[in-house]
């Protein structure tokens, strides 16, 4: 079920980051409603968790976030449910629907910020922005520095430079392209996204394409930490993909990989670790 939410985030067209609202220099926000899982996580990472008074139904990380009342859906937000939390700042993921909601909230006198954090560099910038907005500028800067240094660090290719296909949906097959956070994580882990040439965050492709690009690994996100291959791996048409046939799945925790996150270094390390401890079989 969670993968649905993640898919939705991944599918959203990532483009120019653009933020507006919440003038700098104003008093720090005390009652914040966060309408994206990634933003909620960032707020808690900044130590602004106690200031969060509302979240979406999908904001499940960190576990402390679950104690915050949910206001429902973040991409199709209920303005009334948000207003009922009496926020002094509402954070929204930028999309046509949320822009309408932001206008309605503005009309109610509730300050809003529309943020688009699809890529690694967005995490750094968003951390700085939210740090200032919550009165925790130092924490924001320190998160941003960690991300910046990760981005600046030279990438050490894994010994075999593992080739990965991220499969987010099976029928029709949808894979992750280069316009995405996951693609960045793969690159930083020294591996290669076989669909790096697709310039959108995600794309429908034919199975034939996956089979012919012949990835070493199929990466999938999962809520629970069970190592079972996905149900569709048993379907005969998927078994034309060598990695599926050989059961070479990278099962990644959605909680860590599903959204742009200040824990990006942790995610990269996780992936590196998986790849280094599951060596590829010698090529036939």
């Amino acid at each position, binding site marked *: *079920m969670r993968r*649905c*939410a993640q*898919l*939705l985030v991944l*599918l959203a067209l990532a483009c120019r980051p653009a933020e507006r609202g919440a003038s700098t220099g104003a008093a720090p926000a005390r009652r914040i409603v966060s309408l994206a899982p990634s933003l909620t996580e960032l707020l808690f990472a900044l130590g602004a968790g106690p200031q969060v008074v509302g979240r979406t*139904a999908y904001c499940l990380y960190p576990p402390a976030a679950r104690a915050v009342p949910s206001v429902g*859906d973040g*991409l*199709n937000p209920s303005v009334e449910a948000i207003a009922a939390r009496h926020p002094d700042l509402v954070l929204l993921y930028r999309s046509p629907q949320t822009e309408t909601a932001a206008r309605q909230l503005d009309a109610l006198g509730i300050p809003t910020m529309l943020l688009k954090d699809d890529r690694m560099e967005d995490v750094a910038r968003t951390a700085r922005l939210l740090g200032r907005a919550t009165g925790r500028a130092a924490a924001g800067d320190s998160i941003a520095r960690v991300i910046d240094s990760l981005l600046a660090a030279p990438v050490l290719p894994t010994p075999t430079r593992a080739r990965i296909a991220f499969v987010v*949906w099976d*029928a*029709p*097959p*949808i894979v992750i392209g280069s316009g995405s956070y996951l693609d960045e994580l793969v690159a930083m882990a020294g591996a290669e996204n076989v*669909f790096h*040439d*697709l310039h959108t965050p995600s*794309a*429908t*492709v*034919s*199975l*034939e*394409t996956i*089979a*012919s*690009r012949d990835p070493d690994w199929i990466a999938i996100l999962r809520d629970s930490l069970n190592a079972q291959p996905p*149900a*569709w791996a*048993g*379907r*005969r*048409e998927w*078994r*034309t993909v060598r990695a599926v046939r050989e059961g070479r799945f990278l099962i990644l925790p959605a909680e860590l990989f599903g959204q742009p996150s200040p824990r990006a270094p942790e995610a990269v390390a996780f992936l590196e670790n998986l790849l280094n401890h599951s060596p590829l079989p010698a090529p036939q």
Partner: protein
Amino acid sequence: MKWLVLSLALLAALLAAVTLGPATVPAGQLFRSAIFWDLRLPRALLALLVGGSLGAAGASLQSLVRNPLADPFLLGLSGGAGLGAVLAIALHLGGAWTLPLAAFAGALLALGLVFRLGLVGGSALDPRVLLLGGVAVGAFCGAVTTAVVSLAEASALRNAYLWLWGGLSGASWDTVTLVAVYVPLPLVVLLAAARPLDLLTLGEEPARYLGTDVAVTRRRVYLAASLLTAAAVAVAGVIGFVGLIVPHLGRALFGGRHRALLPASFLAGGILLLLADTLARTAVAPRELPVGVVTALVGVPLFVLLLRRWTAA
């Protein structure tokens, strides 16, 4: 002669479907490659079976409900299939075959509801009641789907709909075998009803006077055509326009007699879907278009052409 041309077109479409694709397979290795045997060939055969089923179902339904604009999906089956798929996702049902099975069950549920509604108008399944019932059941299933989705999780809708419009990407020898075993029975039922269907195009009363048991014919044809459509939606999602356009092409080329029209619609539907799917796989490779988009892009201009011919006549 016409049959020969149709058969040649089918061969050409099959050939295109198995030789063209985003992966480059050297011609010499084609028959040894898994891409040919496990992906392209089953997908082509599934396209042929599904397109053919939709063509034959469309041709018989248009005569059954006496409406040249009837499409197999007009009778609420896509709504039922969508509901089935959404419920399967919302209830976290796992398993490789869950979505097709759930969609098939949903389509059968819609089929049963429409059939029951149709009987409200009398045992002879009044076609007007059938049409209205189909639209009503489709809308009702859509509403329940939306309710389930808004209560569960908005993104489930998106996934169910991705699947519902996913086309033939799930093709495998398993699905081909399943459909190949399933499809002949309803097809034979339709073919056996070919003459009564000819008579039904004259109207209910003349058909009766020419020896048709109208109630039995309508029930058989409705059930057979719907079962074909339900199978199609379960393995290939909603594919519009094939069932609408193909029967009209068939009538233009082979006349209105169902003994010729039904096989012709089956072949033409298979050809159309084969070509549409080949286009969907190759036009924007390595990305893939939903095949329903391609059939609509090809179907709508054809349809406009047909409309012009009718209004001119």
